[in-house]
């Protein structure tokens, strides 16, 4: 067991090199509270990480009813014992003294402590009143990527068939909507094609807008171990920042923000021009290649070089590596998903694999990554703007099948339009047609774009806001009812990571005070609302995590995300298992599409597709004629200039992103001493050139302003392309005097004060990486001052 002194400074730990095709060696990381020895731990309770999307398996150390540490699980396929810094230290947040322990209700403009009966009574009274006066469309739910599967599924049933509203989405809209949409566009259905084991086999690993070193430290450790071993893979990195990934790359392309599609079209152009394409694969498994070839015909490296401001020779070099790969692995994350033309660009990464015929074999995979630990479950359970089990809202047979599972009439399930996405839910709340918004486990008052607008929506007198969380977040402070929730380690449930690995996370300790598991809260609400099925029996018949899991298994049967071969007992015996897991594939499924495309048939697909530029729906008839045999759809898209471009007043591009030490809005990580000390406050990054051009120096206090708002931050000069300013998005106000907003008459701390309200028309994912900004001096640096965190982010 390795308890390294400082995994803050070295997030990836020591190397365990290995060669291609060899199993990744184990390395067991652990961290126990000071003064607690391993033999003093009374119980090790199985769980998995809730602070990123990698799904690292771990055991929680319990002593005298308290969590006292964690240990990575060496037998698990995902992490082989390793843990990243957030997991090694993050468990301490559970025991923070400021956890919510009682429900709060708003009285005379203030939130006051109350009891469950009063709080739930108010929610139920408001729900019934709205249903009666305005119908189900007046109630909305905004959930997260951090609950468990059983909770999402229960929420999906109560919202879609209980209330009958179309307005249920997750903050997964901000992190993983484009991943899901890109998979639907290409393969007809959601479902991660690749597996983390593809890292063990790949000879080229292309990372598109994916700072894996900070977002998934353990997965990056796997890459570093390959790089340190025999026959290392060659990484290709697309990122405007000189990230730890870029430092290892054979080619690093740093395009202007908002130009990913132009770059990808040029890569495809080169691969087609040099005839590095697999015609047999294209003929057997795809439709639409001719359209792509015509679409990228004029997208030469020289053309893209002008748009992206990247040397044409670098684009050619990258195309050479990708075109020459024998086992190509690609990963995609927020640099693509939260940028202009998000889905169109993510789809072109799928196309790289289709034209090269590299899918389904060892090392040949696409990983359209997730940003949150259970984002995958939000998607599959239908808590995020999809119907449960990847069912197609445009397919009446799918809706009828779902109605059969729930024993309701099909009309009870709204399917006249796609489930409403989060940004539109907030728009309806702004306009007043949504009168109640129930927010679970997320913090829109910090995480959504253009915060002054979001705060004004949440603060509206007519909008009844319920916030269900661990702490008095910025959002909770604006709520009318606050429900104290239990979290990881205090409740049981399943969570599924970005490569479809399902883990069971078991209850280790009691939640504080009167805090309750989210599942119990939803079940309580369903019982109080007395939701019934078509025979008059309770709509939701389950009562605990395991019975909820079994209900979900029935809903998943026969669909791509089939869980019928799993059980709590099986997950307890071993460790993570990848879905689909069925009687026929009892050990799970490492890779999808090993033998052609499985779920694109018009009768089974989750989506008939959309126009990649406008987002307009493709109708069933069109899809049937385009793709009658259910092949992968090679979709082309033309590059369009970004919606908000730089100007004389706002000469820079603002991009926001994560840092290795924090998660989401720091609700947990900001309360962990080691993590907080590593990155206690917001900073801004500019290149040394750009800083000099703006008359600024490293360490200056600056204001990053856009037409919508401003942030005050210390400037760091780092390796980032000229013309771009970077802000980490984690920081908000709960640990400042104003509590939930910037101080009066002053700039804020949350990056989203200035971000633009704009989203990808296809995936509806907000664009956090395409705003015009300016950086101005507030005060020169104090001489002798030093920045605290230098592990994270880009470097000069």
């Amino acid at each position: 067991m390795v308890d390294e002194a400082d995994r803050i400074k070295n997030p990836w730990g020591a190397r365990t090199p290995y060669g291609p095709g060899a199993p990744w060696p184990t390395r067991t990381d652990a961290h126990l509270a000071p003064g607690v020895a391993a033999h003093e731990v009374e119980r090790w309770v199985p769980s998995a990480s809730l602070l990123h999307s990698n799904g690292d398996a771990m055991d929680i150390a319990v002593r005298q009813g308290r969590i006292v540490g964690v240990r990575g699980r060496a037998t698990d396929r995902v992490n082989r014992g390793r843990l990243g810094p957030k997991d090694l230290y993050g468990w301490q947040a559970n025991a923070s003294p400021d956890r919510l322990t009682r429900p709060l209700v708003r009285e005379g403009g203030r939130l006051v402590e109350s009891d469950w009966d009063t709080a739930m009574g108010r929610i139920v009274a408001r729900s019934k009143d709205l249903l009666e006066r305005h119908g189900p469309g007046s109630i909305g739910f905004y959930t997260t990527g951090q609950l468990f599967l059983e909770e999402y599924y229960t929420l999906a049933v109560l919202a879609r068939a209980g209330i009958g509203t179309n307005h249920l989405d997750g903050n997964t809209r901000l992190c993983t909507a484009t991943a899901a949409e890109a998979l639907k566009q290409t393969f007809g259905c959601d479902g991660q094609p690749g597996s983390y084991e593809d890292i063990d086999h790949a000879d080229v690993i292309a990372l598109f807008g994916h700072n894996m070193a900070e977002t998934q430290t353990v997965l990056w450790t796997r890459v570093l171990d390959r790089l340190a071993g025999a026959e290392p893979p060659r990484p290709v990195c697309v990122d405007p920042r000189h990230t730890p990934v870029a430092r290892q790359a054979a080619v690093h392309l740093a395009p202007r923000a908002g130009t990913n599609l132009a770059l990808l079209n040029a890569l495809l152009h080169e691969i087609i021009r040099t005839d590095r394409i697999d015609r047999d694969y294209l003929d057997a498994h795809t439709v639409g290649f001719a359209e792509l070839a015509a679409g990228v015909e004029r997208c030469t490296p020289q053309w893209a070089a002008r748009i992206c401001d990247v040397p044409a020779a670098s684009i050619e070099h990258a195309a050479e590596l990708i075109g020459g790969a024998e086992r190509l692995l690609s990963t995609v994350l927020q640099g693509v998903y939260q940028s202009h033309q998000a889905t169109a660009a993510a789809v072109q990464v799928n196309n790289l694999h289709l034209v090269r015929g590299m899918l389904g074999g060892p090392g040949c995979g696409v990983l359209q990554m997730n940003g949150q630990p259970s984002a995958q479950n939000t998607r599959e359970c239908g808590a995020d703007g999809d119907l449960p089990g990847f069912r197609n809202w445009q397919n009446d047979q799918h809706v009828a099948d779902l109605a059969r599972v729930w024993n309701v009439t099909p009309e009870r399930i709204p399917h006249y339009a796609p489930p409403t996405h989060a940004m539109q839910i907030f728009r309806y709340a702004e306009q007043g047609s949504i009168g109640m918004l129930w927010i679970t486990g997320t913090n829109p008052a910090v995480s959504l774009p253009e915060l002054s607008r979001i705060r004004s929506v949440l603060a509206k007198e007519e909008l009844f806001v319920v916030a269900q969380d661990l702490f008095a977040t910025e959002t909770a402070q604006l709520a009318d009812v606050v429900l104290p929730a239990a979290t990881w380690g205090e409740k049981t449930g399943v969570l599924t990571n970005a490569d479809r690995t399902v883990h069971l996370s078991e209850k280790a300790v009691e939640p504080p005070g009167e805090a309750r598991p989210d599942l119990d809260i939803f079940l309580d609400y369903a019982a109080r609302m007395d939701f019934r099925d078509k025979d008059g029996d309770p709509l939701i018949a389950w009562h605990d995590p395991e019975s909820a899991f079994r209900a979900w298994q029935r809903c998943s049967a026969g669909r791509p995300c089939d869980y019928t071969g799993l059980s709590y007992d099986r997950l307890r015996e071993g460790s993570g298992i990848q879905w689909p897991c069925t009687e026929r594939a009892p050990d799970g499924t490492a890779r999808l599409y090993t033998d052609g495309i499985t779920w694109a048939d018009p009768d089974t697909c989750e989506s008939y597709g959309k126009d990649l530029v406008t987002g307009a729906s493709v109708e069933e008839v069109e899809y049937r004629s385009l793709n009658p045999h259910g092949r992968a759809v090679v979709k082309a898209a033309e590059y369009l200039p970004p919606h908000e471009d730089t100007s004389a007043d706002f000469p820079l591009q603002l991009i926001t992103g994560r840092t290795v030490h924090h998660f989401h809005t720091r609700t947990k990580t900001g309360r962990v001493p080691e993590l907080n000390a590593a990155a206690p406050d917001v900073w801004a990054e500019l290149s040394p050139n750009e800083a000099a051009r703006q008359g600024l120096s490293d360490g200056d206090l600056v204001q990053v302003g856009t037409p919508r708002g401003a942030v005050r931050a210390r400037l760091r000069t780092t390796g980032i392309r000229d013309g771009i300013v970077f802000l980490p998005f984690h920081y908000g106000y709960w640990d400042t005097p104003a509590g939930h907003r910037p101080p009066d008459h002053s700039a804020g701390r949350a990056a989203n004060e200035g971000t633009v309200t704009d989203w990808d028309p296809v995936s509806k994912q907000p664009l956090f990486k395409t705003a015009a900004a300016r950086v101005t001096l507030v005060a020169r640096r104090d001489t002798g001052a030093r920045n605290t965190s230098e592990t994270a982010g880009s470097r000069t």
Partner: protein
Amino acid sequence: MTGITATLRVLHDGERTLERDLLTAAARHRTDHEIHHVATDLSRWSREHATRLADVGRHYDLDLPGPQSDASPGALTALKEKAAEALGRRPETGLLLLYDLRELHLAATRNSLHWEMLAQAAQATSDDRLLGLAGACHPQTLRQMRWTNTMIKELSPQLLVSA
């Protein structure tokens, strides 16, 4: 004037009008952000169509002006912009949005039918230049129609029922 030149002229005017209407809708619905951004993007297609129609028109002895030099609905003053935003946050603008989308859809449909006529005439006369033009532009007009239709389909239930 032949039927072809008459159709070229009316389509050229139709594309000019649609560009302006898309930009007007984009300005009016700036708090419906997707409408604002996508309508602006789609106006570029109509602008390009008007340019190409004017270019091709010369081969038919037509002197078409091409797109308007500034098709935007007039620079909004800061005050007007604020007013549009404030107004945009009131519920009754929902109905206005649906009506605007309806008009955009009808205008695009009108253009689409003219593209259809031109393409048919081009086939009948083996006019490759005209066929190429219609082949390049008509699909984008159809995409403008699909977009307005999709937005109407998605927004109507909420804007007509719950507001």
